[in-house]
């Protein structure tokens, strides 16, 4: 095991041992596509070992917002971001911070399952290889561990060298989760992970999220309010690029303070 791996393990242990810790702090975020403002003055904390749900109608900026956390917004040309985002107190938007390192520490699961056109094993080992890990036995161990954590091991253990594209949609999405877990991130971002899945697969992903929050800080974007209510501890409601309300999930769903939140929750618009 090389030094980099050890550091990765260390970080993991130190995160697990603490609770109710601010993992990510977004401060005064304003974001523009060209001249069009997509996010307005957003302040939001993501806590360790909690699931934070971001809800709101389509186009309200939820996906845009969580893509700032792992600096995926930089892939889109002509954007402007002001404000600060801290991961464990470290400003991740700084010029001297390597976005690749941030992306390893903050994993992301996308709306549509996007496994690589490789076999199941390679899909998971890829993240380790690009992060410079070469030890075969170590990689193999980590692949198995990740598949088990993502509740996929029993279904694929006999066909690790089959193409990942032969898996069902739900299995593919769990593979994508396993792929994230393999590089030992500290935060998991889910961008509408169940949008293209059937109810049974959705159920499995939700159970998995509840299981994973023991080890990670989790942010999930969803426009399914029941899902937010089922899996999250905190919920933020976005509307037209503004964070209208952010509170414990129970409060948001049972006694929202803002009229707009209540209207959305009760289905009066959206």
């Amino acid at each position, binding site marked *: 095991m090389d030094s980099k791996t050890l550091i990765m393990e260390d970080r993991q242990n130190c995160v697990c041992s603490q609770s109710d810790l601010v993992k990510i702090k977004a401060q005064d975020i304003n974001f523009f596509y060209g001249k069009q403002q997509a996010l307005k003055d957003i302040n939001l904390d993501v806590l360790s070992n909690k699931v934070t749900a971001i809800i709101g109608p389509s186009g309200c900026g939820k996906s845009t917002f969580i893509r700032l956390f792992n600096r995926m917004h930089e892939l889109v040309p002509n954007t402007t971001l002001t404000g600060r985002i801290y991961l464990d107190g470290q400003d991740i938007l700084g010029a001297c911070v390597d976005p*690749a390192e941030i992306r390893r520490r903050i994993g992301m699961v996308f709306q549509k399952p996007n496994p690589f056109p490789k076999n199941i094993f390679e899909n998971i080992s890829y993240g380790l290889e690009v992060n410079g890990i070469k030890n075969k036995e170590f990689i193999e161990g980590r692949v198995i561990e990740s598949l088990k954590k993502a509740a996929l091991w029993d279904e694929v253990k006999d066909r690790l060298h089959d193409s990942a594209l032969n898996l069902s949609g739900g299995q593919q999405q769990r593979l994508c989760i396993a792929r994230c877990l393999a590089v030992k991130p500290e935060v998991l971002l889910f961008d509408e992970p169940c949008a293209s899945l059937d109810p049974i697969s959705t159920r499995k992903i939700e159970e998995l999220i509840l299981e994973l929050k023991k080890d990670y800080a989790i942010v999930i974007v969803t426009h399914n309010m029941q899902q937010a209510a089922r899996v999250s501890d905190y919920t933020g409601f976005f509307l037209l690029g503004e964070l209208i309300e952010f509170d414990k999930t129970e409060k948001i769903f049972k006694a929202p303070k803002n009229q707009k939140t209540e209207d959305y929750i009760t289905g009066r618009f959206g």
Partner: protein
Amino acid sequence: MRKDIAQKIGFSFISLCMFTTVLFLFAIIYFIGSRGIKVISWEFLTQAPRNAMTAGGVAPAIVGTLYLTLGAVVFALPLGVACAIYLNEYSPKSYIVNIIRLSINNLAGVPSVVFGLFGLAVFVKFFGFGVSILSGSLALGILVLPVIISASQEALLAVPYSLREASLALGATKWQTIRKIVLPAALPGILTGVILSIGRVAGETAPILFTAAAFYLKGYPKSIFSEVMALPYHIYALMTEGAHPEQQTAIAYGCCLILLCLVLFMSAIAIFIRQRQRSHYYG
């Protein structure tokens, strides 16, 4: 009812066009095949020409065409793929890039004899490679660059953006993403470009006219700086020079048939590799 008739006329017309096309293809294969097969023998495939090209075989020309085609692909493939990667993955969207794209498209429209003269001026004279396999391969390589570039660009475009995102989100660099995810996924499409270029290169006469081809050689080329015989040029020579038009014409048909088979054979190899690659990734 009238909609039905219009549809029937439309489909009939399309079918007619399709059958005409196929007819031409079969006509070519039939005429070349039936005339060419008469002169083909083991000797024809393995011997050098004898008696002022009226007897013997065309083996040096077959070997020469193989070398030139291989050389052109070896030269054009990395260059073309790199160019496509630059244009698709790295270049900022600007007017300079548009000019580059436009230039590449125009390169595809340049008559092939221009590449012949260009090759003579630059590779043969300026770089001093002489009339050689190297000069000819380079001239042919430039000729097919646009084919390989546009096929590669198409192939890269067809790789879903979500795969790039997934790779980057795992902490991979852009370079790692391109090398390990995008390129392997695009490879089957890139190989399609190679297949097209093989057909193009193997049959070109003009670019090798002044850069590589020899009228008559006894033996096989010794190095990349040797002159070579090549099938297309040999056909041209047989039909325009010499004192025995009848025997020569028969041999020319034989050469045509071999050229067709050669292109088919090289394409088959590329198709085989492409198929294997596809089943590896999507099996």
